[in-house]
């Protein structure tokens, strides 16, 4: 395919425009990979090569070189440049002569100049010499822009950093710069296409662009578009909001969040079984702080602790390793949960025993959907009176872990003081002790998000023995420490607590950011972890939320994947014909076209064998031409049959007598019908033989496979 295409770019202006476009794509490409000197070198190297090729390729000595030679030379030039660059950077010569910075800049300059000059040289040469060469050039320019902006995904307008930082430090909206880049890319590509006034090449270019667009469509169809992140920070972080902020190093610093968006929905729960909690709140446990790390309680690092928690999402079902007891007093409740923001752990209605991943009915809305199976408690607190604590299969070590608290005698002192007033029959009852502590906190604690404890060595002590002003973390830590000081195994549960009233009679329950909660839990023998949650009577925070029943209902319907929701979605769809249908029709049409083309191809080769003698000259000749077309020999537009025959006579000599006979019968008086039958057969045989003996095998194979080869026969 080394057809030399006449290229009309000997003029200075188009050359300059094209050079500038390719050079800018080099500049864009190099920006993130090198320093300014490298970028400038890349730009100038590209300009240099463009002018060199466009103005000199048709003159001595470049026009005498073969394309492969030129490509090889460019490559060697590049290697040489890298060699020099390495020499400049890695040895002391340049650094010693000037300075290390100069040496580095010198190296980058040489490397990028060599790279861009050699690539441009190859690209321009290919564009001049090959019919499809300019396509590579356009692809290069397109990919330069794409690579540069590839970091800018998922709506992250701060990336790539070299654009985002530049803009943000100057108070410019980075999105306008990114848009300018995109517009630049589009304009450059269109300019490149428009400069191509060789009409033979335009179909190539448009085919390639069409294929690109089509493959993009296929990609989107198959993998979907990246989900836009619904954040309020202009996408600057590239991360979604933290739903539950229990993943911080210091849980007590949560209060520093100015919870502007306390009503932001974080999840929706659909109850598949009816359940009403006795204490007025639905508790959803996500994880727990149980291991004392020397300063405060933290996630358990030991495998034998907190085995009831399910730590990770799996794609199938994951079961709790440790089931709670007292199953007679519990109800198995299945809930479907759709997370609206990502969570590290799944959470479930207390006490969750299994999670099962479910199909996401709307991946634009839900980050993850799963079913949670819970053994929800139906006992009241009286059931707990007289129960022992701890678990039989806990080792002594584990029990000790659940009993560890800061080395601060005041906890025990306060706890002892609080249980002094217990009636004698409850004096040794763990639940009664715990309840006494909870009651103390209820009555004396002040709920507030603003507090000064976060930076104390022990915020819980600062809270408990200080102003008793804090929020759930302080209450739960203080309570847990006091439980532990009395020998009651306890931990801090983390998750959400949603008032039962929020359900408003429906089966869906909306979990909002403000419902994030922590609470103390005590382990009762044969029952499991029981939540004993202090509820301070004085609160400085408005914890009520506006009822969002509509949203709750809508999200619930969405999660349930109800037909009504599907109907709703369908009613929203404006286009009558689905994209899928269109695609299927396109596929079917493409397949049908192939089949029909093959059928026609075979028919045209077969029909001479059965047709009458008098149409042999026409059908037989056409079949012979079809065979020649298949191996790339076909008449050009406006070329006469004789000229075509003469042109290929060197390889297929039999075509000349055949053409002559064909024309004599087609154009002459057909009164004198020569006895053509045997003659045709002979000519046909020799043409077949000549084709097969002069054609390389891949050409033959391509000829057989190509369903459209007969279209070239005219």
């Amino acid at each position: 395919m080394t057809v030399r295409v006449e290229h009309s770019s000997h003029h200075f202006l188009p050359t300059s425009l094209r050079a500038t476009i390719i050079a800018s794509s080099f500049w864009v490409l190099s920006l993130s990979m090198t320093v300014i000197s490298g970028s400038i070198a890349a730009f100038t190297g590209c300009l240099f090569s463009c002018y060199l090729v466009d103005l000199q390729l048709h003159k001595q000595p470049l026009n005498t070189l073969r394309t492969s030679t030129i490509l090889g030379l460019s490559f060697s030039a590049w290697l040489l440049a890298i060699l020099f660059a390495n020499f400049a950077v890695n040895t002391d010569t340049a650094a010693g002569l000037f300075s290390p910075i100069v040496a580095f800049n010198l190296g980058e300059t040489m490397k990028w100049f060599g790279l861009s000059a050699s690539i441009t040289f190859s690209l321009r040469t290919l564009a001049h010499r090959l019919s499809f060469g300019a396509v590579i050039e356009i692809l290069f320019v397109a990919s330069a822009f794409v690579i540069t902006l590839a970091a800018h995904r998922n709506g992250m307008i701060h990336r790539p950093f070299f654009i985002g930082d530049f803009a943000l430090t100057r108070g410019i909206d980075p999105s306008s710069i990114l848009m300018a880049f995109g517009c630049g890319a589009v304009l450059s590509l269109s300019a490149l296409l428009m400069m191509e006034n060789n009409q033979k090449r335009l179909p190539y270019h448009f085919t390639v662009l069409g294929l690109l667009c089509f493959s993009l469509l296929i990609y989107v169809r198959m993998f979907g578009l990246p989900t836009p992140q619904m954040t309020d920070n202009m996408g600057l972080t590239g991360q979604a909001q933290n739903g539950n902020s229990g993943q911080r190093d210091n849980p007590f610093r949560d209060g520093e969040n100015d919870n502007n968006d306390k009503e932001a929905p974080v999840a929706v729960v659909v109850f598949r079984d009816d359940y009403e909690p006795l204490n007025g709140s639905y508790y959803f446990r996500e994880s727990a702080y149980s291991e004392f790390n020397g300063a405060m309680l933290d996630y358990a690092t030991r495998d034998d602790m907190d085995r009831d928690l399910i730590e990770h999402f799996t794609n199938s079902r994951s079961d709790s390793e440790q089931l709670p007891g007292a199953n007679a007093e519990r109800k198995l409740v299945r809930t479907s949960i759709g997370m609206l923001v990502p969570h590290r752990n799944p959470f479930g209605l207390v006490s969750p025993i299994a999670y099962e991943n479910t199909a996401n009915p709307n991946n634009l809305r839900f980050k993850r959907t799963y079913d949670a199976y819970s053994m929800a408690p139906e006992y009241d607190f009286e059931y707990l009176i007289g129960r022992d604590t701890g678990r039989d299969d806990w080792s002594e070590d584990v029990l000790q872990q659940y009993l560890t608290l800061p080395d601060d005698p005041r906890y025990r002192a306060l706890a002892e003081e609080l249980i002094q007033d217990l009636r004698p029959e409850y004096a040794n009852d763990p639940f009664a002790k715990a309840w006494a502590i909870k009651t103390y906190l209820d009555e004396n604690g002040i709920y507030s998000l603003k507090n000064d404890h976060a930076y104390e060595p022990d915020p819980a002590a600062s809270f408990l023995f200080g102003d008793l002003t804090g929020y759930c973390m302080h209450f739960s830590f203080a309570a847990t420490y006091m439980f532990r000081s009395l020998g009651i195994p306890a931990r801090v549960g983390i998750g959400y607590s949603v008032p039962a009233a929020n359900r408003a009679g429906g089966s869906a329950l909306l979990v909002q950011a403000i419902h994030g909660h922590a609470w103390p839990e005590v382990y009762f023998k044969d029952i499991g972890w029981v939540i004993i949650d202090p509820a301070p009577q004085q609160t400085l925070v408005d914890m009520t939320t506006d009822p969002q029943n509509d949203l709750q209902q809508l999200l619930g319907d969405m999660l349930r994947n109800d037909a009504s929701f599907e109907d709703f979605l369908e009613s929203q769809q404006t286009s009558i014909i689905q994209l899928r249908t269109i695609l299927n029709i396109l596929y079917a049409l493409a397949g049908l076209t192939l089949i029909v083309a093959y059928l026609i191809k075979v028919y045209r080769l077969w029909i001479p064998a059965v047709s009458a003698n008098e149409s042999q000259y026409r059908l037989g000749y056409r079949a012979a031409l079809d065979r020649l077309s298949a191996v790339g020999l076909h008449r050009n537009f406006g070329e006469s049959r004789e000229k075509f025959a003469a042109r290929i006579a060197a390889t297929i000599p039999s075509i000349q007598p055949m053409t002559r006979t064909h024309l004599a019968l087609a154009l002459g008086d057909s009164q004198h019908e020569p006895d053509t039958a045997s003659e045709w057969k002979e000519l046909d045989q020799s043409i077949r033989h000549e084709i097969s003996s002069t054609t390389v095998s891949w050409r033959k194979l391509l000829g057989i496979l190509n369903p459209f080869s007969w279209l070239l026969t005219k």
Partner: protein
Amino acid sequence: MSSDNVAEVEELSTAMSSSELPKALDVLATLQATVKKQVLGRDDVIELAIIALIADGHVLLEDFPGSGKTTLAKALGEAIINGSSNDESIVPFRRIQFTPDLLPSDVTGVPVFDSNSNAFHFRHGPLFAHVVLADEINRTSPKVQSAMLEAMGEKQVTVDNVTYALDDLFFVIATQNPLDLVGTYPLPTPQLDRFLFKITMDHIDRDSELDVLDTYKTRRDLSGQLETVTRDQVLRARKTIDNEVAIGASVKTALVDISRNLRDDDRVLQGNSTRSMVLLLPALQVSAALRGRDFVSAEDIELLLPRVLGHRIELAPGVSDVEKVLLDNMREPMEQLARSTLSK
């Protein structure tokens, strides 16, 4: 055509049975061979001249002096002998050197008073010949030019209200010098229409020129010994070819389409006439016969059309490449012609 082609023509002509065509081709081959022996390096011009001769047309050569025009015309004229014809007034070859002071009677002939018979006798002018070389036709006055062109068009001359018929074979090779235009009367386009071909010749190639110098002596002695054909044979060949070489409908379609394309082209001020297409048909037939075909094909059109139309169309100001204009307008009809052979 090279000498191999002559052999090929002969071979092919024997293959065509049950027709007069082989005989006609023999005549053409003899003519061609005879002329070729005397004019070297001008095979294409000889072929065109013979085509014009058989197709009953005339040729305008645009060439430099001393390039063999006269030799060509003379060789052609001498290759045709009178044979059985007893008209003494017709000679094989005449040459007229056109000058500004030439009068029409110098060309046509003049009645002279014969004192013996006491009557006027018409003295035949140089037009009464088989082959007439009209040298530097643009140097003479329009009056003489029009007398000449009337003779060419009507095959007759009228002197003193008496019309004298010219020979059936009357064939004019006119020349004009393309460069030395001072004091000339260039032929206007309608008059050029009388010529079937306008052939612009280049200098012959180096080898042929050497050949000319090497063999000029032997060629001078050659005349008189060469094979000849009779006038009647030529006329019969003309008739045979006209009868037996077929012109397909798609060929005529192509010709008409090319003409229409030319008339629609912005680069063409005035397109070619319908007459030019009519004149072209016999030429195409001869060309086909010379290639051993009994049908007209695209090859013939490609060869002859530029020669026939080149001087018949007037180009718009600023357009100079008539060849390109013609090729551009030929491409589409020729493609249709080629495609037509595969359909019924």
